């Protein structure tokens, strides 16, 4: 069954039309990227999914039933890590569990074993300000997946990192995700990131956002620790060309 299906969704904020008849779908275990120019309304799409805003038209279904019937379908990771600076890393990671009502000791017991896989072993009692940018991002990712929601929503998770750290994090994410097979919807404007990580890419136009291209990528993984294949390079070129024609404003 399709994990997430968005069909002909439209949305306006006042006189500004943000989304125009956007349709996309995510299968279970699939890694789907949404690629689009800045300000296209990519993040607005996530706000629809977390039910922060409701669409003017169209339908959104999760596992075949309307979104409104689901309150725990998505785990959301915002653009910046949004770690609470006054909470230790361990208590930041368990935030979602705590809000769900999991007792603190149980939540901590669940989080602790995952720290080494996320490269955070030994930093449980540190404050976020004591971590490097990449570590903060991994802590935020751990905080996201530990909630065990069916679909992970990642909003430009590496956008704020320096180029080198970003590449390290992409490789790390690829390995981690390949193991766990988490169903994921990723927002990005980094073409290479989308091509390397995704099973499928939707390309959005500039505002009002429409889906102007859909690409399925079957290249075997891992893709990042080997030289770029010709087909991947061709794909990157094609996506860049599409995107560059969209920055008309």
């Amino acid at each position: 069954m399709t994990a997430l299906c968005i069909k002909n969704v439209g949305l306006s904020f006042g006189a500004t039309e943000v989304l125009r008849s956007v349709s996309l779908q995510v299968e279970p275990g699939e890694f789907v990227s949404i690629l689009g120019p800045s300000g296209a309304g990519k993040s607005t799409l996530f706000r629809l999914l977390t039910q922060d805003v409701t669409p003017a038209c169209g339908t959104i279904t999760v596992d075949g039933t309307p979104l409104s019937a689901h309150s725990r379908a998505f785990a959301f990771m915002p653009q910046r890590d949004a770690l609470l600076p006054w909470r230790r890393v361990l208590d930041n990671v368990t935030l979602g569990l705590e809000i769900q009502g999991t007792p603190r000791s149980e939540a901590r017991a669940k989080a602790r074993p995952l720290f080494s896989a996320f490269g955070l072993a030994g930093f449980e009692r540190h404050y976020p300000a004591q971590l490097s940018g990449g570590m903060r991002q991994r802590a935020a990712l751990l905080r996201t997946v530990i909630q065990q929601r069916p679909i992970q929503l990642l909003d430009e998770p590496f956008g704020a990192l320096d180029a080198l750290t970003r590449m390290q994090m992409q490789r790390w994410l690829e390995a981690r995700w390949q193991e766990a097979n988490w169903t994921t919807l990723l927002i990005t404007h980094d073409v290479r990131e989308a091509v390397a990580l995704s099973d499928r890419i939707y390309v959005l136009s500039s505002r009002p956002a429409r889906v102007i291209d859909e690409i399925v990528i079957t290249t075997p993984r891992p893709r990042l620790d080997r030289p770029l294949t010709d087909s991947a390079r061709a794909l990157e070129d094609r996506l860049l060309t599409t995107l560059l024609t969209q920055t008309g404003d």
Partner: protein
Amino acid sequence: MQRPMPPIRGKGLARGIPAVLSVVSAFALWEIYVRVSGISPLLLPAPSRVVDQIAQNRALLWGHTVPTITATLTGFACSAVVAFALSIILDFMPRVRRALFPIFVISQTLPLVAIAPLVVLWFGFDLTPKILLVALVTFFPMLVALVDGYEATDPEIEALLRSMGASRASVFRIARLPSAMPYFFAGLRISITYAVVAAIFAEYVGARAGLGIVILNAKNSYRPDLMLAAVVISSLLTLVLFAVTAVLQRIVLRWRDAGGDT
């Protein structure tokens, strides 16, 4: 990538040296001026004479310091509790905030010189008018600090909490309240310095005991040395309270001291 925990305390003592030096030299200059110029102690007593007066009148001064401390702490505690409770109400009810905020601002425009005698007139020579005046003066900085602090919460954190299914009350407890703490302590430090002054002024206007009364009596009997002795005590009182809030802030905001270099 691994980063050791930075030391929380640095050269704290060494950093205090310039402050101590400047204070000591100011008093030294004062002492030297008084001795060299031979000015009458009825006009300007030397620091040594003031210290001598504190020693000689220590029983009297202590007897008058206790009521001032009581008024200050009670007034300040009332003010803090009410400011905190009210700030939560205002945060959850923006309409109430818009309705009440002008009143709070107006309360800050009232000149203490005029309001203090009135409050004493209405509530007598006992503790009540002092508590009220201390509360009036200290309430507003704390309230504004809290309300502003709640508003300064990172919207991305709030969006994240909502996506996790947090209620408005949970968002307040988990994000807004902790976000406001640095602001609250800034307000607290301002308030505490006003508190002792307000208590003494209230006593000066009318009271049975207190440092304000010592100052009033000393003024009436042309004793600037005793006045300054009371002033020194009141300054020390404020400094101690200020230090207590600083320690409290260090404990509550220890996450800020742990900061890295990012």
